[in-house]
């Protein structure tokens, strides 16, 4: 009970501290980017086709745009960078700001410190990314078809609610995996140098042979996304044959757990040495 209270306090503190950093401004801008793009798309569509010939066709078209934003902008860019940057920040922020001793002097086991801070990061980033995702969806569908069309798409013939929830879940998994990698990277490196390398590797996915695609995390996230709207499209060609759900879940879990264990192992032995001490 005491440990739970301690972890809750540290989680709350971590959220507050992350929210107060310069990284948060970068994260807010990243999260705002797809929303702005969606707004531009809706305005452009309304100008191009003020009265769509068929509501159903227009809805399919809007859904395609949403899938494009989800797969390319959210998964490959927004979530990736928010997670990597924030994960890196929770590993390095106290060391950089020379406030690590305040945390290390707390009567909390170190594994619990790492866990509480990771949960804090997740809480903040999930709120940010899912708010952005749902806002993009609301703008795209609601902005095109109004409240009635939106309700119809979510709960009626569109039946998008389940798909949207599943897509949200995949983004949460991506936040966990990339956040864990960011945290492990922050334990091992002083700068974010590893982030662009990983991003380029994930970006090469469409150009890689199938066997190599499976060495990329993006491949498994893409595989988990519901693809009923793009069954045989070019996107599928680019992404390759999707992996089975169990294989995807296993790969994502393996990477996440390995990265968290690595971050834990480093933090477990971390000493409170700022540069000036060693000078």
């Amino acid at each position, binding site marked *: 009970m*005491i440990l739970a*209270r301690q972890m809750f*306090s540290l989680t709350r503190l971590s959220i507050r501290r992350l929210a107060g950093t310069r990284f948060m401004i970068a994260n807010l801008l990243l999260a705002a980017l797809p929303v702005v793009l969606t707004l531009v798309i809706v305005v452009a569509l309304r100008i191009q086709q003020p009265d769509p010939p068929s509501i159903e066709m227009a809805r399919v078209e809007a859904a395609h745009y949403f899938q494009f934003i989800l797969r390319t902008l959210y998964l490959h860019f927004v979530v990736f960078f928010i997670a990597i940057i924030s994960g890196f920040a929770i590993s390095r922020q106290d060391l950089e700001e020379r*406030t690590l001793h*305040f945390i*290390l002097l*707390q*009567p909390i086991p170190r594994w619990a410190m790492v866990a509480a801070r990771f949960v804090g990061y997740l809480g903040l980033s999930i709120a940010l990314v899912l708010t952005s995702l749902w806002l993009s969806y609301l703008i795209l569908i609601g902005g095109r078809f109004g409240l009635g069309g939106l309700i119809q798409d979510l709960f009626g013939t569109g039946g998008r609610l389940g798909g949207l929830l599943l897509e949200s879940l995949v983004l949460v998994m991506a936040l966990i995996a990339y956040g864990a990698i960011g945290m492990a990277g922050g334990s091992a490196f002083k700068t974010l140098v590893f982030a662009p390398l990983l991003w380029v590797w994930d970006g090469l996915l469409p150009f890689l042979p199938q066997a190599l695609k499976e060495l990329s995390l993006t491949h498994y996230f893409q595989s988990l996304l519901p693809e009923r709207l793009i069954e045989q499209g070019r996107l599928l060609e680019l992404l390759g044959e999707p992996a089975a759900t169990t294989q995807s879940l296993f790969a994502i879990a393996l990477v996440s757990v390995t990265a968290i264990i690595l971050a834990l192992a480093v933090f477990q032995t971390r000493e409170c040495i700022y540069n000036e*001490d060693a000078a």
Partner: protein
Amino acid sequence: MTDNGAPTLPTVRMNGVSRWYGEVLGINKISVDIQPGITGLVGPNGSGKSTLMNLICGLIRPGQGHLLVLGQDPWNNPALHRQIGYCPQGDRFYENFSGLQFVRAMLEMHGHGVDWAARAAAEALARVGMVEAANRRLRGYSKGMRQRIKIALALAHQPALLVLDEPFDGLDPIGRREMIQLFAEYGQEGRTVLVASHILHEIEQMTERILVMSNGYVLAEGGIREVRDQMRRHPFRVLLRCDQPRRLAALLLAEPDVLGAEIEDERTMTLVTNDPDSFYLRLNQMVVDEGIDLDLVTLADENVSSIFKYLAGKEHH
């Protein structure tokens, strides 16, 4: 000793403890016991005071040797952190917190609930005189106010061991006096207080017990007088007041352990000796034999400052 006669463990026991930062020496082969009460840690910059304190607080690990704090290994020992309060030398905080929010947030991590944390934080801020500024942002605090917040945080959970690294930095004279009083009271409660400071006469106001460090070594430890004894080679200055200072000076200068004499005025002189014990014995005999009226004999510089100056000088040479 405990009630059943068993010897009590010191609060801190270091046995051959060394710590290097790469090729830079932090401390080397230090073996000391620190007992309850106040102990002053004296030494110039880079002497290893902060390294010693970080080791005691479990923030770093010894490279060699054994270290016990309250009978336990402090490294990676969260339970022990409940019994240690640390005021670091560094001046970094969570700047967007207020003083009260900061102390409370830290105390909440002890897991005793938010009410306990709020109460303990308020009490600690009151003890260091920070009630009025408690709700202002840390980034707007003066150096002295920030220092008080660190001290409040260190003692808010009533630890058995209080480790204070340069706690008087940035405090005005009134603040220093208040904090000296606070630490003295804390030490009198039977707790252990380890204070590192450059402001040496303030250490003297709190304690007789000091630990002198230089270049990563403990050069001397004990009471101020004991430390003197450990530094026998250091010449002592003795102030004498008598009716015939010139005659007494001439007589004393013939003695082998008297290194020099200086007449201050018609009744006062200062002598330099490297063996005060035998000097005192001979002086007593001499004033009786020669009929000199001696009304004051005192060590002119038996304080931490003189030891420190001596050490600093020795280092330069």
